[in-house]
């Protein structure tokens, strides 16, 4: 039987069940708005969105691995590329690029020019400290933690704050070696 290699983000996106992005965008927007009403503090909303994203990420990683057919990445560089080229594409249908690597290869930026979360969104002045897309950074952090990578994910640039793109810094804090309760050849 031929073994299937990793699939491209485009091919997976084309094959999964898809829905109208307006429903997704407006549901996210209404959720953020309701959180702002209920929690009042913008900082607290940032924290909740990150937590929600984390909870989603730790579940979504299974779907990602199952559908992408990706096996272990050799290093963090490959991991970042896979997130940008396959992960974001297969779920959100967008393309992203990876840049700004540090010398150690443990910190980089994922840059998005297009992001369905923010279609139709304009932030009022009262929400200046809001990281509107914080759910996305949470998803990446949660998903990576499930594959043994502790990361810190922060927004460096945000189109809702007037920047020309979204830039998400992903910093690898710790790689926990996977320990199996058994040996591979047993």
């Amino acid at each position, binding site marked *: 039987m031929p073994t299937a290699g990793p699939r491209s983000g485009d091919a997976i*996106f084309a094959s*999964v*069940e*898809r*829905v*109208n*992005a*307006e*429903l*997704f965008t*407006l*549901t*996210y*927007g*209404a*959720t953020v*708005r*309701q959180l702002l009403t*209920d929690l009042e503090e913008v900082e607290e909303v940032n924290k*909740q969105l990150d*937590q*929600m994203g984390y*909870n*989603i990420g730790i*579940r*979504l990683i299974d*779907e990602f691995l199952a559908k992408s057919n990706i096996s272990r990445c050799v290093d963090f560089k490959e991991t970042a590329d896979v997130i940008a080229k396959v992960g974001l594409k*297969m*779920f*959100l*249908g967008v393309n992203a690029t990876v840049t700004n690597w540090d010398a150690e290869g443990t910190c980089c930026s994922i840059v998005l020019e297009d992001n*369905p979360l923010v*279609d139709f969104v304009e932030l009022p002045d009262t929400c200046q400290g809001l990281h509107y897309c914080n*759910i996305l950074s949470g998803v990446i952090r949660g998903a990576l933690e499930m594959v043994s990578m502790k990361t810190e994910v922060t927004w460096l640039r945000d189109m809702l704050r007037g920047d020309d793109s979204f830039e998400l810094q992903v910093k690898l804090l710790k790689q926990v070696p996977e320990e199996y309760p058994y040996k591979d050849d047993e």
Partner: protein
Amino acid sequence: MGREVAESCVDSLLTEMVSTYCHRFYANKPELAARRIEAIGYQVGHQLSERYTMERPRFTDHLEAIKFICKDFWSELFKKQIDNLKTNHRGTFVLQDNRFRWLTRMSVDPQNESQDNSADGENKVAQATSMHLYFPCGIIRGALSNLGIPCAVSADISNLPACSFVVRIKA
């Protein structure tokens, strides 16, 4: 064809939004959680119906508006129409979806389930399901309210996976 995202984005977001309100914010006040979830749905329905009716003439009566919800509106959201519409001609409409997408994809955390005895477990499942249904009920109420029709919407799932939404128009 407009922009699309993977269906799992919407599923994950809804599951997490409902769980945030039910388990984190209002763990002991399900009625408050329900109200917030419905309110989020209301906003979404209101905005969507605004977008989908922009180029349409005004609806002449309630039935026209309800039919729009059953056909065009439902198709935009679920790629299918409502399967059955009934009315008592006195302001109550029952919209039945024989296989409501958001219910067929719902699952219950097996870990939590196995800790309960079965009666309690079933109760929890019923509660979790009804919490999820406040969102589409809110969507329908918001959509109709945007069309100038104030109403109350509830859901009936005695016939799973069919789901009936009962719309009572306020006189």
